[in-house]
């Protein structure tokens, strides 16, 4: 059913209706408006038309149509990323709203993988796996209530349980991708039409990796196959405080190196803890940094021993046991942690990856910026947190919260300096998008980006997929 009728002005309107039906296509500006932003302040072009495909065949037909007419096309998932990656850079683009492609296609208990539609949201996937007694490795980005598997793996999202399992891409075994010419490929063991989807590396080079983190530039992911694990019921939590960030970082590094936790999250200063959880450190005036740790295992003794070791490490580094309320809340409120932070204002993020030992140096420079702009006195709070990732690196999330439009200009000025600091201190953004692209390109080795463009031009000679991405935003 359509209430708001499509305008029918887009050149491909009727052909798209022929493919997916009238209810799934709109170029009405009321509808388009709701696809004009993601969860960041960043803005680009509005889509020319929005289409909601329901099958790989429909995606193929749409992509072929776009390729034949040289019409730009951009796939979008939950559209709650915070780097502007799903926003078109050119006018008139066909945006694919992929959220209807959300089925659990196959749960293969023999090889412990699940194949899902790329539009499935992480939280629902957790729900569906839970019903069958399984869990994911990487659980989803912090916006995983809405973020989709296809979206996250297109922009290297990171989040829950990355401390143990690495970012979203690490759990991928195989992809089904519609190429810009409309052909479909299946990566990993999917090259063999008679085989199960059980391994990523088989017979050829790792074709999966080409499409991971491609920001939708090389094709449309329609299915993703992920590793799964037996459900693990035994969870233990620990919060540990330190008198300075250096000690906290040293302990954090050791815990992360030893691979003890499902989730390990560092809050780099008192202000961060206070923004995130006001009052948490009131009884601990000497504490200036802390980490929350979550151990999850299928065996109770194993879980207990791991948490004991985490505690020993923390105390050996001069840490203080703060109980476990913060870590319980952190894990129990999965995918709901960041939304309440909007109460402090609209966020300006600096999401990136970095070696753990560089955290204090990066924060020194951040504190200088906060002081230079007198942010707290001017009503702008921040959170600086780091999530242990995979083995021995971490995310860096230093986020400002301008409380209203008036404070946005000041916030943006400080934030731009912060982005420079991230790059100058050896940080590497995990996603790109409007947020990072110019700075990333400035630092990218020429042969690297040239190789990317050779691949892109070979796969997408008409340049229809997410045009202008990785070319810079200016």
């Amino acid at each position, binding site marked *: *059913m*359509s*209430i*708001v*009728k499509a305008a029918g002005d887009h050149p491909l309107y009727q052909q798209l209706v022929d493919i997916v039906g009238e*209810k*799934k296509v*709109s170029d*009405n*500006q*009321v*509808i388009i*408006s*709701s*696809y*004009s*932003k*993601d*969860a960041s302040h960043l803005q680009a072009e509005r889509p020319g038309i929005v289409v*909601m495909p329901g099958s790989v065949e429909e995606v193929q037909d749409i992509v072929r149509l776009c390729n034949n007419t040289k019409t730009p096309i951009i796939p979008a998932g*939950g*559209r*709650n990323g915070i780097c502007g990656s799903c926003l078109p850079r050119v006018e008139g683009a066909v945006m694919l*709203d992929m*959220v*209807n492609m959300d089925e659990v296609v196959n749960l293969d208990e023999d090889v412990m993988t699940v194949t899902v539609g790329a539009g499935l*949201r*992480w*939280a*629902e996937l*957790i*729900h569906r796996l*839970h019903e069958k007694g399984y869990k994911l490795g990487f659980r989803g980005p912090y*916006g*995983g*209530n*809405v973020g989709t598997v296809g979206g996250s793996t297109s922009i290297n999202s990171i989040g829950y349980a990355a401390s143990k399992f690495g970012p979203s891409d690490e759990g991928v075994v195989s992809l089904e991708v519609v190429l810009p010419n409309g052909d479909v490929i299946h990566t990993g063991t999917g090259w063999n039409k008679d085989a199960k989807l059980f391994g990523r590396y088989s017979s050829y080079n790792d074709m999966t990796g080409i499409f991971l983190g491609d920001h939708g530039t090389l094709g449309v992911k329609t299915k993703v196959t992920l590793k799964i694990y037996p459900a693990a019921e035994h969870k233990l939590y620990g919060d540990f405080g330190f008198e300075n960030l250096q000690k906290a970082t040293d302990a954090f590094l050791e815990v992360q190196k030893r691979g003890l936790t499902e989730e390990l999250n560092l809050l780099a200063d008192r202000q961060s803890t206070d923004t995130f*959880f*006001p*009052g948490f450190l*009131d*009884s601990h005036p000497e504490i200036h940094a802390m980490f929350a740790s979550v151990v999850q295992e299928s065996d109770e003794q194993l879980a207990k021993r791991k948490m004991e070791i985490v505690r020993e490490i923390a105390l050996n580094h001069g840490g203080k046991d*703060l*109980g*476990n*309320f913060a870590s*319980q809340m952190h894990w*129990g*409120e*999965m*995918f*709901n942690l960041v*939304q*309440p932070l*909007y*109460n402090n*204002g*609209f*966020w300006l993020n600096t999401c990136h990856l970095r070696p753990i030992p560089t955290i204090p140096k990066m924060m020194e420079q951040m504190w200088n910026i906060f002081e230079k702009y007198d942010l707290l006195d001017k009503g702008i709070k921040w959170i600086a947190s780091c999530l242990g990732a995979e083995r021995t690196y971490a995310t860096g999330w230093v986020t400002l919260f301008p409380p209203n*439009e008036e404070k946005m200009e000041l916030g943006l000025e400080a934030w731009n300096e912060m982005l420079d600091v991230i790059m100058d201190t050896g940080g590497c953004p995990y996603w790109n998008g409007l947020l990072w692209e110019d700075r990333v390109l400035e630092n990218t080795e020429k042969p690297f980006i040239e190789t990317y463009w050779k691949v892109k031009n070979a796969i997408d000679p008409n340049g229809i997929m997410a045009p202008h991405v990785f070319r810079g935003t200016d």
Partner: protein
Amino acid sequence: MCSGGLTRMEFDHLSKYQEDLWLCARCGDCSLADKTVASDRDVYMPCAVKNVLGFEAYSCRGRIMVMNDLIEGKIEPSEDLVDWAFTCTTCKSCQETCTATADGIRLPEMTEALRQDLVEQGFDMEKHHIIEDSIVSKGNPYKEARNERLDVFGDREFPEKADVVYFVGCTSAYREKEIARTTVELLDRAGVDFTILQDEKCCGSVLLRLGRIDAFDELTTANIEAIKETGASKVITSCAGCYRTWKVDAVENGYEYPFEILHITEFLDQLIQDEQISFESPEEITITYHDPCHLGRHAEVYEAPRRVIQAVDNVNLVEMETNKRYAHCCGSGGGVKGSFGDLANDVAGDRIEEAERTGAQTLVTACPFCHRGLVDGADYNKSDMVVTDLPTFLLPYLKGEKGKKAEEEDPLKKQFMEYLREHPMIFDGLKKDAVIDYEIEGDRFHVRLVDKGEIEVNPRRAENPDVELMFSEDAVEELFTKESEDEYAARFGEFFKDPTDEKWIKFNLRRNIVKLLMKGYRKFAQKAGLI
């Protein structure tokens, strides 16, 4: 649609929500979230309208983007925009799901404000003109004769004075007549001293929902005066829409009245608790309950209808996947049923499917709009699901004798409740109306802060608690041996931080952390040694 011929509008009413419009960071929980397992809430794809229509513009996130574009002049008002504006059922599911502000982004209010702006500047729907004219001239939105309002009760006469007024509502009086009839019969058989207003007028709910508020004052004033003349201390209604209008909207619009407003479910709950009535089904049946948005999310009445249903012997209540705060809407509210009937049927059809998945034979609700919508939804789906309204459901099961004595409370629960009553300083720091739900291995009660240092301990589950605390029996047994609040708090903290298989405490936060901090939970948690 009548166009005022403007292309750039002022949005005086909507602009009052500038802060919400700015703070929505488009996380999309209101649109696509499934919190069922990941964070143990019964949230699943909260927007029933978006679930049918698909595009983001129909979700709260999308609506806020469109509203921002409207205010900034990036979109102009048009017939399409008016249609879009009236597709929201204002069911508040998005707001309950939203954790971006203490109370959630207030989309229902914003939608009504936008509708007001549109109506005031000539952008509206012809159907809504007709409804408003009918309410103004005939006292009901259905163009029915004013003097036929009470025909539903036949020759039944009502006294001029009574302790209770049954406010029938237009929909029960003219359309869903079975609800009106069975409510009256229930009240009669329960021996309630009640009457009905001879010249009852529409409560005005539909006008508020459609952004046409001009006539609201006259209606409300007239109804208040008429109720006062009966001398009633209580007004009960079987219409969730009327209930919300009286209980919430009238108060928010500055009206005061010397009587208590109760929904029929609350009133029956009281009668059952007071052992005045009892119910029994001759055979075992399984039913599920649909929370009307006006009664549930908008007025926070979730438990009373369930207690009433569970008080019927041989009735087994099963919950739908989304229920209470997070229940999917039936599709009838906010003017959608009248404006877009097919959309309402589609939404109701989805809710019928949800009810079917429970295995229940009957779907009970407590609102004539929901009843009509769900009956139509079942027809639309060609479903065998029986849909009935609560008074109609209950009437055949009403027993002749007075109610049976309530079961004796579990001694452990009683002791714990008594202990908490004697130690109100455990709750020191919490603000008025903070509510904590306690569960001792399945048995529930709740504590409400009446005022500083003053608590109320109720032997029932809370309607909408801030926090749920779950205790093992052994933990409780030890806790109420503690003589001082400080000792209690210290042990409480230990059970939480270092639980054993025998002695443990768990918690669920049911409110946004900002809301919890505003209600004083920071000090509560510190005192208990949690932080």
